[in-house]
């Protein structure tokens, strides 16, 4: 057994930084088997406890090691409806791999890379009839609002139970943040389309262009015969810093910038009608994965200099280590301990500079991270022609505002009980709208909510 893990093969930084083709190449079959053989098959299975959807990790890895690929796929899909997505975007280093006993050696098993390998193997070997075989879809009817990770996972679980599942999506295309947010070079759309097709083949119906709350109300869905509803509507409104000049042209929320590029294919303007500016000197504000995605996207659109501005230090950045590493390799600059104070524009209202202040780290705050405080007199100006604000989202107030009985917390998130049921009977929720933060958290909640919905339906039937 080799002591170190096999690194993910990736395209050279110079080559990839100017196109949208996927950065990571995936393991070869030999690499996958070799990596899989590193798994100690511990009796205690700590990795499983680290997985929000509870994949039987040692079992699927064993199947890979023994070259029983159809089994590996089956084991994965038993717990995870979207393994090709998760194998690419989950922060495994904070979840399953963090619990791996080999972590002590500094080389935990590359569970994420193996998950990706197995999922891609399925796609390339057309075993879809086994893994995506249609379930016998009957009643009861459940409506899922939002086709992002929470909704898709919930739908995937519910069809397994034999439920009749319909997803309503407000955009013209499906996938939620997996489509409009995560760039092609990290999650190719054809991977997402493949996973979505599997769900459709299993009987999940999807209606796009339907904004629940406006096109139809929650009560309309109940009157149409849906017996339970799951809300996976996402976080919604992008946050801004509320500093002067933030509404100048060419200052975007990360959601807008990434939607233009990912959902609307603006990087192929004018073949596609939606434009996006090709900023030459771009500032990206924030330190999460969305900030990394924005910075790397700006680079691929032709920027000569992209600077990521983050008010804490590298250590506190919430982005995945892999993403930060990739961004560095590609030439993204980092201005740590830096806070934007405001923007100035040219005579036509386009941003031309951002004024910043240097920060230093003080005492830890409530999140346990050391709180940044300004260094007096450290102001400086950075000339830019585009900025992307990626400092997070606040919950979209649309649905609770338009739905009687749907209560929210002080932060605007939907209130749910231990069974993911909102304050409205038969209406469940999961994902960012109840405070989730990552794709896999949303998926975990979607999956658990599906169990609760099953339980709820069972009880409902008993009462009849």
């Amino acid at each position, binding site marked *: 057994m080799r002591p170190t893990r096999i690194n993910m093969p990736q395209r050279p930084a110079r080559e990839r930084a100017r196109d949208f083709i996927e950065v990571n190449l995936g393991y070869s079959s030999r690499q996958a088997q070799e990596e899989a053989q590193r798994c100690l098959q511990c009796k205690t299975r700590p990795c499983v406890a680290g997985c929000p959807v509870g994949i039987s990790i040692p079992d699927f890895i064993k199947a890979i090691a023994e070259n029983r690929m159809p089994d590996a796929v089956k084991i994965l899909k038993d717990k995870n409806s979207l393994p090709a997505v998760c194998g690419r975007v989950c922060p495994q280093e904070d979840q399953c791999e963090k619990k791996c006993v080999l972590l002590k050696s500094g080389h935990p098993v590359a569970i994420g890379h193996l998950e990706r390998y197995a999922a891609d193997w399925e796609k390339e070997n057309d075993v879809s009839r086994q893994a995506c075989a249609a379930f016998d879809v009957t009643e009861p009817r459940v409506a899922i609002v939002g086709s992002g990770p929470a909704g898709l996972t919930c739908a995937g679980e519910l069809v397994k139970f034999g439920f009749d599942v319909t997803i309503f999506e*407000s955009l013209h295309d499906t996938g939620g943040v997996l489509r409009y947010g995560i760039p092609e070079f990290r999650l190719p759309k054809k991977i997402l389309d493949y996973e979505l097709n599997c769900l459709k083949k299993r009987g999940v119906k999807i209606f796009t262009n339907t904004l629940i709350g406006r096109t*139809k109300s929650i009560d309309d869905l109940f009157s149409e015969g849906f017996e339970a509803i799951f809300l996976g509507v996402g976080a919604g*409104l992008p946050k801004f810093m*509320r500093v002067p000049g933030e*509404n100048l042209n060419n200052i*975007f*929320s990360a*959601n807008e910038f990434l939607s233009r590029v990912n959902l609307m294919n603006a990087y192929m303007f*004018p073949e596609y009608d939606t434009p996006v500016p090709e900023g030459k000197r771009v500032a990206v504000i924030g330190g999460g994965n969305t900030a990394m995605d924005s910075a790397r996207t700006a680079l691929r659109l032709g920027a000569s200099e992209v600077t990521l501005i983050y008010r804490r230090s590298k250590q506190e950045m919430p982005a995945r280590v892999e993403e930060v590493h990739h961004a560095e390799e590609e030439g993204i600059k980092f201005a740590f301990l830096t806070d934007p104070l405001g923007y100035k524009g040219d005579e036509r209202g386009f941003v031309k500079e951002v004024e910043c202040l240097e920060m230093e780290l003080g005492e830890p705050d409530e999140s346990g991270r050391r709180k940044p405080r300004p260094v007096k007199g450290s102001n400086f100006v950075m000339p830019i022609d585009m900025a992307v604000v990626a400092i997070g989202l606040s919950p979209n*107030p649309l649905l609770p505002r338009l739905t009687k009985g749907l209560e929210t917390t002080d932060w605007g998130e939907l209130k749910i009980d231990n069974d993911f049921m909102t304050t409205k009977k038969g209406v469940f929720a999961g994902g960012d709208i109840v405070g989730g933060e990552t794709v896999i958290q949303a998926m975990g909640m979607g999956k658990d909510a599906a169990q609760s919905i099953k339980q709820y339906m069972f009880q409902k039937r008993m009462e009849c």
Partner: protein
Amino acid sequence: MYPITAKEVLADSIKKIEVTAPDIAKRAKAGQFVIIRVSSKGERIPLTIADKNEKNGTVSLIFQEIGKTTLALGRLNAGDSIMDIVGPLGHPTESVKHGTVVAIGGGVGAAEILPVSRMYRECGNDVIGIIGARTRDLVILEREMTGSCGRLFVATDDGSAGRKGFVTDVLKELIEKGDKIDLVYAIGPVPMMRAIANLTKPFGIKTVVSLNPIMIDGTGMCGACRVTVGSETKFACVDGPEFDGHQVHWDELIQRLSAFKVNENNATENYKRVCKCDQHA
């Protein structure tokens, strides 16, 4: 795909289409809009809902051909389909009895003021309508507006129909004559809405404007449509599209509407060239 069931040319470059969208037709109210995408490579643009027919399951959209997307939309005919339509979006106009409401539509805004005028009339307001256009041929929906307002004034820049001048000239006369006005509602080109807000402000007349900034999703997700109202940044798609005209930061709105002018103009010119090629072929 959403079929177009009828098409009408209202004026040079102003067209009306009826689109099959039963769910939207069922719930649409005055003041709301839809976001459409003409084709699979198209952009998403907001259009105000001009009318609806619940029985036929259609909504009417009236638009002026100004850019590539509206030109492409204008080339479609009954029997063709548009790729996507979602709505109804935005807050509906509040159905309240104010007293006397002056409802102003400039240019293609006449299409948007019509359902608002009807709704105000239905809830007991005296509605005075003003519609304006550059010239006679561009005056649209005069007959329909006459039917939904107590009084209707038409103004054209060149005096070829109605009185010569701007809609603001008519409004100014009404105010100066001492007519009691409880609410002014304006929709149309931004400079027109701004001029109206500037006119009514010293008189303390409540003025509602319906804004049409750049949007992508129209559900609050992207923040492209942010407008400063008072000292706050609002998202026109979920907080609007109606705002207090006296509080809107007009310069910023005009600046933000120009964000993609160069791209838009290029795309439009290219499209016009390609269209001509098609016709010769």
